[in-house]
């Protein structure tokens, strides 16, 4: 009986120490294909990322409003490519936030420039 408990304790310890509860996901850096539009048909929107700040076409805009604003621009101005300019002070979290917004909007290409 005691040896059984020993083994079960051992298993329990192993699984407690080697496992994780965090859930992981991944997102592609860059474009998924392109827009398919020729260079002449490109209507870009310009996003600038710097430390803690985002601006769309030169106007400062919180990241939370960005998805709505881009969807609006897409229906009104027919933008089909997003040019993301990354400042030296911007961090990865901001970049991934933009990637997530861009992948949710169909037909929107993405270009990342420094």
């Amino acid at each position, binding site marked *: 009986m005691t040896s059984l*408990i020993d083994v079960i304790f051992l298993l329990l310890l192993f699984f407690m120490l*080697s*496992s994780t509860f965090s*859930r992981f996901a*991944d997102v592609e850096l860059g474009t998924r294909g392109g827009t398919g539009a020729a260079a002449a048909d490109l209507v870009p929107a310009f996003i600038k990322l710097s430390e803690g700040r985002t601006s769309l076409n030169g106007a400062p805009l919180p990241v939370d409003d960005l998805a709505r604003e881009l969807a609006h621009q897409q229906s009104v101005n027919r933008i089909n490519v997003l040019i993301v300019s990354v*400042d030296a002070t*911007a961090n*990865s979290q901001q970049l991934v936030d933009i*990637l997530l917004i861009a992948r949710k909007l169909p037909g929107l290409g993405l270009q990342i420039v*420094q």
Partner: protein
Amino acid sequence: MHLSSSQTRRSKAEPTIALINIVFLMLIFFLVAAQIAPPLEQGVKLVSTTDLDNREPPDALVVMADGLMTYRGASVTPAHYVTIKQEAGPDDLDIIRLVPDRDLSAVKLIQISAELKALGAGKIMLVTEQGLEMK
């Protein structure tokens, strides 16, 4: 003498069955609820996201906040990592997974991914940590 005999009579055996039951319960809980994960670098804070599909824990190139890269605990350069991947399997270069720290400078991240692409990497995927809240 009388005292000691009464003491030995009072100490009963441990309730073994109940103990086993509880330990079994915990074992089953951990088996079901958690995933076995290769340890990531200590102190790396993953980028947090909320609405992506889950995937298994990553075995990938970790990029720390200061731009240093480690793979399985050893610090590597992109060229070294590509060599490791090539040796592991010919198709392993098609998708390269990066685990960036959330405070890593985005410019640095882009540089590293450009470097990996120049070395023959196909798609670059960024591994993030999924938030617990549901959409």
